[in-house]
């Protein structure tokens, strides 16, 4: 049966994008705003086009799109001499392949997971890990830690949605916790003890062996990996844990961002009147820290409205994923949902000083054409799915 497009998704997406245009005007002026409007119009057209393509065609196209996206990143890794190697330029416009790789990966992962009727063992996760791991690794090598990290929650949540048991996934990815805990030998020992008790109680030999081996190994090699990180990446992580130590360095951003949001108060300083923004205390005003400016100019009320819009959009996508009968479509919508949800949470968490500084744009709002276009592509396919969700 043919249904109408889910209009609540359309309106919420457009509302967020227009808010973004407004905030970009406030933070970067009309020139950047006009560029963003151009991108937005292009993105909307793209989404309209995508929404008219049947989910079945997306399913069939996904391997090609995926290979194209991976090759694109591979090409800039080889060709680009501007460091970090994140951009492909076409005259005035430039594009970030990593953003399209998110879309392509969600598509490809949904394709693969939908072909598996039952996901049960660790071995079932090998191909999904490979599908997400390849673009993640390439993006990491650009280097773009902020963009690379998003592939992990996409993998986790999409696998879970596809039927992989949650506890299995947790055990599978428990070495990540081990890596974080390994910065303190005491924390690591306590973590390992709890993990081992838990694994013994589960009485599953493979889980026990895998859990013990992987966690021990990661815990031991993590210090080596840490030393291989770029200095600025190390600084970002350190700055998060002690932001007032070095007010000139990375934590300057966190401090100024918190001051901007905090000084907004309940109702904000008013549109275009943010002093933290205007006097350039706020870093990355129209990109990664645009939310701080929103908090400064519109206060708590503005933040609650924006968070509500995001929660509504994400909830609508989640409901769509639940209602869609088709396995591929359902898993894909869930992927788009977690992609937008995770980026939103990370971006807002960073601006509020809840999370370490990682350069993640705020979906639909941050200035930047590629991110906007990629999100609209995802939404476009979701809209196509919403029209036909009961069809098969």
């Amino acid at each position: 049966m043919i249904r109408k497009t889910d209009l609540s998704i359309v309106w919420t997406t457009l509302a967020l994008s227009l808010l973004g245009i407004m905030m970009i005007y406030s933070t970067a002026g009309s020139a950047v705003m006009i560029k963003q409007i151009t991108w937005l119009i292009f993105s909307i057209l793209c989404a309209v086009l995508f929404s008219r393509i049947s989910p079945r065609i997306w399913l069939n196209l996904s391997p090609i799109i995926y290979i194209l996206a991976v090759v694109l990143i591979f090409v800039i890794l080889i060709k680009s001499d501007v460091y970090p190697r994140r951009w492909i330029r076409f005259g005035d416009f430039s594009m970030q392949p990593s953003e399209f790789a998110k879309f392509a990966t969600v598509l490809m992962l949904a394709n693969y997971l939908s072909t598996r009727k039952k996901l049960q063992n660790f071995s079932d996760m090998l191909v999904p890990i490979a599908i997400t791991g390849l673009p993640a690794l390439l993006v990491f090598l650009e280097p773009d830690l902020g963009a690379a990290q998003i592939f992990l929650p996409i993998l986790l949540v999409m696998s879970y949605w596809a039927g992989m048991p949650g506890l299995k996934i947790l055990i599978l990815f428990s070495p990540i916790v081990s890596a974080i805990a390994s910065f303190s030998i005491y924390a690591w020992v306590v973590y390992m003890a709890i993990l081992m008790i838990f694994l013994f109680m589960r009485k599953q030999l493979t889980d026990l062996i895998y859990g013990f081996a992987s966690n021990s190994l990661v815990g031991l090699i993590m210090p080596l990996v840490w030393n291989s990180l770029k200095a600025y990446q190390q600084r970002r992580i350190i700055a998060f844990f002690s932001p007032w130590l070095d007010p000139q360095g990375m934590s300057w951003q966190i401090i100024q961002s918190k001051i901007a949001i905090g000084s907004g108060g309940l109702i904000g300083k008013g549109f275009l009147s943010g002093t933290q923004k205007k006097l350039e205390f706020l870093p990355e005003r129209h990109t990664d820290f645009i939310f701080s400016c929103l908090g400064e100019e519109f206060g708590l009320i503005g933040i609650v409205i924006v968070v509500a819009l995001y929660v509504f959009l994400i909830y609508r996508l989640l409901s769509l994923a639940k209602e869609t009968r088709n396995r591929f479509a359902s898993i894909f919508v869930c992927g788009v949902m977690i992609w937008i949800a995770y980026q939103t949470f990370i971006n807002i968490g960073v601006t509020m000083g809840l999370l370490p500084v990682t350069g993640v744009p705020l979906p639909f709002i941050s200035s930047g054409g590629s991110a906007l276009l990629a999100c609209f592509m995802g939404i476009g396919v979701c809209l196509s799915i919403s029209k036909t969700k009961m069809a098969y």
Partner: protein
Amino acid sequence: MDEKAIAFKVVRNLIFLLATIVVLWSIRLQVIEGKKYSRLSEENRIRRNFDPAPRGRILDRHGREIANTRPGFYVSVVRAVIDENTLSALSNILGMKKEEIIEKSQIEKNSFSPVKIAHDISYAQLSAIEEQSDAFSGVEVGVEPLRNYPYGDLFFHVVGYVGEITCEEIEKDRTYILGDYIGKMGLERYYENILRGTNGVEYVEVDARGKEVSKITEKRSIPPTPGVDLITTMDLALAESVAMYLEPYEKAACVCLNPQSGEILVLYSKPSFDPNLFTHGLRKNEWDALNNDPNAPMYNRAIMSCYPPGSTFKPFIALAALDSKTTNNEKRFETCTGMYRLGRRPFRCWKKHGSLNLTGAIINSCDIYFYQLGRLIGIDTISDRASRIGFGKRTGIDLLNEKQGILPDRQWFEKRYGKNWTQGHIFNLSIGQGDLLVSPLQLACGFALFANAGRIPIPHIIAKSDTTFFTTEISLEAIEIVNNALAGVVRQGTGTLARVSGFEVCGKTGTSQNPHGDDHSLFVGFAPAENPTILVCVIVENAGHGGSIAAPITGKIINLYLNDLQPMRAENQWTQAVHD
């Protein structure tokens, strides 16, 4: 419930949980801690700029500027926003080490407040900074009033100098701020509160790089209130001449005052130092060199160096004897043969004087007469009268760090030498040697007693109409007798080189014994004898006899003052200024 429904609930609850965390956290930032962040935001944005008040001028008695202000350019940095490139470029331009700039900027705790790191930069340095000002971040230049001393080292010890305030000084007085100049010595310090004025305040909006964006109009700015001019009693022309007369000597001090009013005309000490050099701020090695100089240029010899007064003390012994009526002018002792024995210990005179009365002994400065006179009147009479005249006490001049010297009395000798102190100590005291130490200013004030018929004014440098006197209750007849002898000293005695044409000068020579080297040459004189308007005390270190060096200098000073300067000024009456 199927798997999908469970997964839906899990993911949905997770999303709601994260959204709740975000909202709660923003309530914390914006509502609970909102005031704190508002304040931080205002501190980021609004800066109080202080507009330094020009210091009051210091004028001589005829209104000539001996300290004024001139504009100078300063450089300040904002530590939080200065970057490495700016720091290197600035270090090159100013010839300062980077570490030095950072160290100076760290005085201010708030890293967003600009801190002055260099004062009085040259036009070349200024234009070098201005040229690169677009590339610089966190650097500002501005104009500030700077202290200027047009006569260089001439008034260093009296006027003192100003320097940038230290953190300890701000601790003591919170009305100062970093970058203020404060009087460190002399009048600059003593009259700091009159001279300093009040800084103006201006509120400006600054951007993240510390650059001023606009003036803030909602907070009213306050213009600076300049300091009040200080009119002194000093005489520029006389001081210049004193310095010229003392030019050939390395270490010397001179006090000229009006004995009737206590007005200080000249207070000169050498070696001296150019206080303009402090305006830049001395480097540590320059400071050390200054402080460790064996000639102690920082030391105001006129009030801080204490010397044995030598024979200039004899008039006070004579006065004590006459006032206590122990003896009279005609009293004669054993004839001076150039040597006098106390037991087996010989005490010498510088010449064989023969038999002298008191006046003659003063005129010819006979040591042997005064040994015997001192022994006759005794330690208690000497210390009592000398103490009444002000020896061993501060004169109360309006300068800090005045030394009180030493006037030994019975207790002092007992404490110093035990019960065994002898007549020999009194002998030495009687001719102004040994343990007695007086500052040139004390000595000048002591002589004011003779010049002013027993009334000693408290000396002052600030101009004021009312002078405080203290009376010594010493009989006028005694003073009259000694006065006549002092006139004789210059007329026919040891001080003839101090004679001045047209005026009778009274005075006394002295040679201050110096255990570390050549004796110091001393002379104290005043004129005109009948109505003294100037009293001069000169000490030239390591120069020998008082009569040969200090006396002619005193004569020249008095001559210049009475014969050249005063007639010229009869027309130019100076107006009295009233200060607290």
